[in-house]
């Protein structure tokens, strides 16, 4: 489609590529910088004048596996994130089904309430949530992280799935109904298979937000017991040693790679997912 679009009158192609190219450079430069920091020895990071051509070193690689329980942080992240996405899907799929395929009083208000929880600043609920989890004895556990990530992403996931459900032609459902299928069966056997791309998109976006989550994790996980990658990074400061930048940069780069591959795979659905279904990209 894009290739069919012609050059507009008065538009300068050189300018187009200069602008796009400049931004591409600005996007990729810090990434090169991540890699360059991650693969240099610690002594070449903070120096009187910056070193642009450092010597190669796997210091950081050894450090993250030997000096820190990186495997444990990784496991915490993965468990908390997968658990939260499962909770989200279990709650969001029926909710989205209800919001998209039924007419009833209060439907719009319920839908908007779910959407509006996306607007809550984490800091607003941070203090009460902290007390809640303390009362429940869940502080410093990945259970608490799972529950909070699920809550943060629930509105997003529900609205994305709802948007995909709205696209399913009603005829498909009616045909199943005349065959005598009940609503739950229709949901399970017709709707869910038809909106699988939407479910995957929602899950991927939920995972990214969960990986990135910082404030709640910082409050809930106060010891390395429940640290996730995101907060563990902030604690690579090793006391008097100062911030251990090469380890941070390397971990960030390693975490980036799988996320990048997954997102490229769902690229087509991304704009729709990011706007909670408001844009049909």
């Amino acid at each position, binding site marked *: 489609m894009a290739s069919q679009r012609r050059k507009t009158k008065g538009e300068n192609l050189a300018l187009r590529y200069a602008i796009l190219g400049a931004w591409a450079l600005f996007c990729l430069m810090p990434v090169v910088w991540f890699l360059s920091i991650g693969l240099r020895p610690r002594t070449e990071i903070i120096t009187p004048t910056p070193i642009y051509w450092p010597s190669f070193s796997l210091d950081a690689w050894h450090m993250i596996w030997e000096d820190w329980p990186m495997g444990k942080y990784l496991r915490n992240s993965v468990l908390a994130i997968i658990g939260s996405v499962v909770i989200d899907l279990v709650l969001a799929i029926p909710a989205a089904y209800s919001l998209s395929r039924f007419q009833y009083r209060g439907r719009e208000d319920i839908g908007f309430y779910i959407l*509006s929880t996306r607007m809550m600043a984490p800091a607003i609920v*941070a203090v009460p949530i902290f007390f809640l989890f303390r009362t429940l004895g869940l502080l410093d556990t990945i259970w608490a992280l799972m529950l909070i990530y699920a809550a943060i992403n*629930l509105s997003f996931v529900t609205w994305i799935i709802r948007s995909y459900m709205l696209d399913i032609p009603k005829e498909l459902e009616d045909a199943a109904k005349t065959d005598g299928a009940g609503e739950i069966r229709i949901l399970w056997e017709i709707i869910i298979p038809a909106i699988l791309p939407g479910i995957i998109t929602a899950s991927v976006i939920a995972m990214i937000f969960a990986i990135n989550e*910082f404030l709640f994790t*910082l409050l809930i996980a106060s010891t390395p017991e429940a640290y996730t990658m995101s907060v563990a990074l902030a604690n690579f400061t090793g006391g008097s040693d100062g911030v251990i930048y090469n380890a941070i*940069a390397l971990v960030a780069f390693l975490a980036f790679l799988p996320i990048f591959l997954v997102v490229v795979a769902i690229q087509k659905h991304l704009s729709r997912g*990011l706007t909670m279904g408001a844009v049909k990209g």
Partner: protein
Amino acid sequence: MTLSDVSATGAAKAAPDSPTPRSVPFRRRSKRMRKALPYLLVAPAVLYLLVITLYPGVFAIVQSFHNVKFGPWQPAGFANYAKLWGDYQFWGALWNTFVMGSISLILQTVIALALAFYAYRDPWVKGWRIIFLVPMLFMPSAVAFIYKLAFLDGRVIADLLMKVGLLDANVAWQSSTWLSRLILILADVWQWTPFLFIIFVAGLQGQDEEIEEAARLDGASWYAIFFNISLPMMKPIIVVALILRAIDITTMFTNVFIITKGGPAFGTETISFFIYRTGFKFFNFGYASAASVVMLVLTIVIAQLVVKRAFVSARS
């Protein structure tokens, strides 16, 4: 589907010769049960969100009328709110959030629109999308550290500026409010302009090419087409994208926490950081809750006035 549809299909299901035994429990359900079904389906999600939003809301309101330090809660009346009213740090945090948020949002919008405008007709639009997406996929905490290193600890940016002759001495970023804000804004623009870009490109690609083509045949220039046709058509999409971005910008925390710690002299302290500092650094939970309640009220007002309308118009 209307209510009459529901009851009609209900009747259809009561037909005795249905060949599928698995649906029997649903078919025999009473009419009242059928009416309750959509509510039952949405209830678990709503209950979950109520626990995580309404409960904290009520809790924060109650706590905001108490003095909560280490011991038991002491009733404090409106003392926390009165203190908030006169607290220049609280107003400062609101102001900083607003200033840094608006500058960052405006920059991101302009850049993303310009990039989307140039990219969407380009044969390599898929490639541009993938490259521009990259910053968004790094963990924000790591991005914050990398910017801290580049600007502060490693002095790379100042060194580069000196090399090209724009500076003749090192810069003390941290001693200037505006330079510190600049770092935060730059990191935010770098990481989150892609969010808007992806959405804007999708919006531009989704619009009717024929209108554009007709205008082009009439001899309209690119900026006439862009400002008079593309932009107005994309308005609902732009509004939704900006709202989502604005929500995240106003809750800015990670970069402040890692790069500036709110300094110098609270000049980069955002409202999220203010609540965090009062509650979890000084353990003045009652006071932090009072600030949370004020923010909560603001959020609800904005949600009702702006967001509801935007999402409804984007859908229709």
